[in-house]
């Protein structure tokens, strides 16, 4: 916005309170967050409206579609010291907070110090990772790390960490309960124009530094369930959606002009076996690699992708279930071995069972384990996650066809989580998560330090312990040389392909759709810039800069 028009807008606002402005650009209407009624809370740490990420910004945005490539935001660069102990940040100059104050190194230092005094808001674990933050000059900050880690930058300066204005938060005593009505930020949308339980509108920050911004206001209509959202989307009333759409061509694209979609791949979906289950006879079976091969061969992945996931999703998972954003780290040799088992072949599955010593001795149609004991196990899947429940049923069909006595249980999502907290499950239909770096991905999903824990999608899903794997992951974290990193990753991938500690299935989709009658510049398969969905933490600031009003 140039100066002249902003003066014009300001005067017209001053003189025409209550009257409707002519020739206003439309609000960008976004559907991303379920709610039974908006609550005015913009707390950036917990429980606030997600759109606080259009108020407070991160230093760097890592591209979640394109190998975590950095897009510099409030920082213009960073460098890691040779000993992996100090991360130096160069800050963008000329950035102002929306109340006119300058954004400087003091704010950054404050952001990294504040969580130490308030552990309840430390969702990123700053206290355990950053020893101290030091101001070098007004636009340079050094982060002194607790432990050495080559991948610390992705963890510490990415989307999850929004820079806080020191002059506001230093005066807040109880940050977790502050509703942040001041909405002071460096971000694009800091003016709250309207707030009702059914809709709220956030408008442009007059001080905004990034001149790519063209959208005037963003609007968030409330919706309580998928159907309510689909109702609005089908009519083409909304511009930018992050909602699952069944039978998308029929229920969305053909319903209104300009309705379009792009569903890139998200995190991996897998079935895991609990290697420490109390079901002894099943545990003995899980321990056999031939059994695990048979398990993988009994998975009708095409049916799962077609039926449960409407054919929107893709497969070709590596044995480690590495998400596509990190496919640059795949190992061709490991993939070749794994491709033998990443297919649906009941006959081959039966062969592997026989090779592993699994025979049906009592004639009930299901094999007994290596010791001749009967065994059966249940795959748990959260009730209400319909696509997964359906696909778990398909998995069980395949297992039973191969002669393995498996069934499905559908605990409520909380009980599902409680079950792995107590190690109280036999097998699990679960997700694979996306992490900020390959190291973090391996660490979280494979390192035995997360076994027997309460974490979603972590090693708790398998409770698999492999000292060599642990060792490799630790070494990877302390290695700065890219060629060496690749070598270690290759070995990790190979272990997964040979050992098959889990059964990767397919990738979840990212449910992103848009309507381009009022705005242009939306990303799509032809223009796949970054993660396109309008959720927070997912590259949506980058996307917002690219969206332009039509006409």
């Amino acid at each position: 916005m140039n100066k002249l028009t902003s003066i014009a807008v300001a005067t017209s606002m001053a003189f025409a309170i209550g009257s409707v402005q002519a020739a206003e650009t439309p609000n960008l209407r976004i559907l991303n967050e379920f709610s039974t009624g908006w609550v005015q809370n913009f707390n950036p740490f917990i429980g606030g409206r997600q759109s606080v990420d259009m108020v407070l910004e991160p230093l760097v945005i890592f591209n979640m579609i394109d190998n975590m490539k950095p897009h510099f935001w409030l920082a213009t660069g960073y460098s890691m010291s040779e000993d992996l102990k100090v991360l130096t940040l160069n800050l963008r100059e000329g950035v102002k907070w929306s109340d006119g104050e300058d954004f400087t190194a003091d704010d950054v230092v404050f952001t990294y110090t504040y969580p130490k005094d308030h552990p309840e808001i430390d969702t990123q674990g700053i206290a355990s990772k950053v020893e101290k933050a030091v101001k070098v000059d007004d636009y340079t900050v050094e982060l002194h790390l607790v432990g050495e880690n080559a991948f610390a930058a992705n963890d510490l300066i990415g989307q999850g960490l929004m820079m806080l204005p020191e002059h506001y938060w230093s005066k807040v005593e109880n940050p977790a309960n502050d509703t942040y009505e001041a909405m002071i930020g460096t971000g694009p949308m800091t003016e709250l124009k309207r707030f009702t339980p059914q809709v709220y509108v956030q408008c442009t920050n007059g001080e905004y530094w990034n001149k790519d911004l063209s959208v005037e206001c963003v609007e968030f209509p409330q919706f309580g369930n998928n159907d309510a959202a689909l109702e609005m989307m089908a009519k083409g009333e909304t511009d930018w959606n992050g909602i699952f759409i069944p039978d998308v061509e029929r229920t969305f694209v053909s319903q209104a002009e300009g309705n379009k979609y792009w569903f890139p791949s998200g995190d991996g979906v897998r079935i895991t076996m609990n290697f420490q289950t109390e079901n002894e006879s099943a545990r003995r079976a899980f321990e056999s690699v031939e059994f695990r091969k048979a398990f993988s061969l009994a998975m009708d992945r095409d049916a799962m992708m077609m039926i449960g996931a409407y054919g929107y999703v893709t497969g070709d998972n590596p044995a480690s279930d590495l998400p596509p954003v990190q496919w640059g780290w795949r190992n061709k040799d490991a993939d070749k071995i794994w491709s033998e088992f990443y297919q649906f072949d009941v006959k081959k599955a039966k062969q592997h069972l026989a090779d592993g010593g699994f025979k049906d001795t009592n004639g009930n149609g299901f094999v007994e384990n290596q010791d001749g004991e009967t065994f059966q196990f249940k795959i748990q899947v959260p009730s209400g996650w319909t696509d997964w429940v359906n696909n778990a049923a398909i998995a069980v069909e395949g297992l039973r066809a191969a002669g393995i006595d498996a069934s499905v249980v559908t605990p409520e999502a909380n009980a599902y989580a409680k079950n792995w907290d107590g190690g109280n499950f036999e097998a699990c239909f679960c997700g694979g998560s996306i992490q900020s770096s390959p190291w973090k991905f391996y660490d979280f999903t494979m390192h035995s330090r997360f076994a027997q824990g309460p974490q979603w999608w972590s090693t708790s899903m398998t409770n698999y312990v492999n000292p060599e794997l642990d060792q490799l992951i630790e070494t990877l974290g302390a290695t700065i040389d890219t060629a060496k990193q690749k070598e270690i990753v290759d070995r990790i991938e190979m272990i997964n392909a040979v050992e098959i500690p889990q059964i990767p299935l397919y990738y979840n989709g990212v449910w992103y759709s848009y309507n381009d009658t009022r705005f242009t510049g939306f990303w799509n398969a032809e223009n796949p810039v970054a993660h396109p969905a309008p959720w927070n933490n997912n590259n949506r600031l980058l996307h917002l800069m690219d969206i332009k009003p039509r006409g």
Partner: protein
Amino acid sequence: MRYIFTRLGFYFLAFLFAVTINFFLPRMMPGDPISSFLGRLAQSGGQITPETIAALEALYGYSTSVPLWQQFIGYLQSIMVGEWGVSTRFFQPVIEVLGRGTQWTLLLVGGYLLISYTLTTFLGIYVAWKRGTWADSLITVGSVVISSIPAVVMALLLYFAFASNLGWFPTGYAYDPALDPAYTWEFVSSVLYHLALPMIAMVLLGMGNVMGMRSNMINQLGEDFIVMGWAKGVRDRKVMFSYGARNAILPMITSFAMSVGAIFGGSLIIEIIFNYPGLGQVMFQAMLARDYPLIQGYLLMMTIMVLSANFIADMLLFALDPRLRTALD
């Protein structure tokens, strides 16, 4: 007077009973606010890091180390002073979250009670009077058939036919989001428009009351004093309303008091299907998110409303029924 005190005493005990259940039931459920928060994050594909959990635990102050009975005492104390805690799902005081939903539920249920009971009472009186005619058969059988349709089926049918497909009615919200709440005709009409279809569904489902009123009325019409009225040559209309209906309505008041809980419960499914932002929606979210304070608050709110309705009905009966008064005096 003694009667009133006895009733009050009963309601107080019932309230304590409900409070006890309120407290213990949610606590016996698996899951806690933290794991359910993570669950929502996991389902939407958010990044979950090991650090998140420690922070959440610190925030919620959620701990199982305090003995249950101490939690219970604390709970009783805070209820009495009106502190119902903070919702872990909406990060707002429970009273506020409930208040937001309650206004719409009260509007829906209150409007329903008014329309439905007026309509069914008059229809009931009418068909009782006209019993044996084709109008009687049509209305009674019709209301039995309509009110037997399960609420889910009825709501889905109306929603998809008239809101989604034909577009005659809105598909969600309590009023047009473009409007700000105000006492203007524009706003009020928008509220009524958004209320209409859920209300129609509820009124149709409540048509069964015609049957209740009809049999009460017929019972009354057989009583001696009615026959005497006729014998004295009192006009039909007067016999119908002053003699018959007045007494036939008394059991309706009791049945209303008894069904008030069911009506509030019934509005739940209607609110979910019509995307109407009432208490039912709130409760559903609270259940899924294991929002203990909110679930407790919801059950408490329901109990208070049901108990009050019962008490009001008691008082009404006491005022309207001379027999009850004389029997007690």
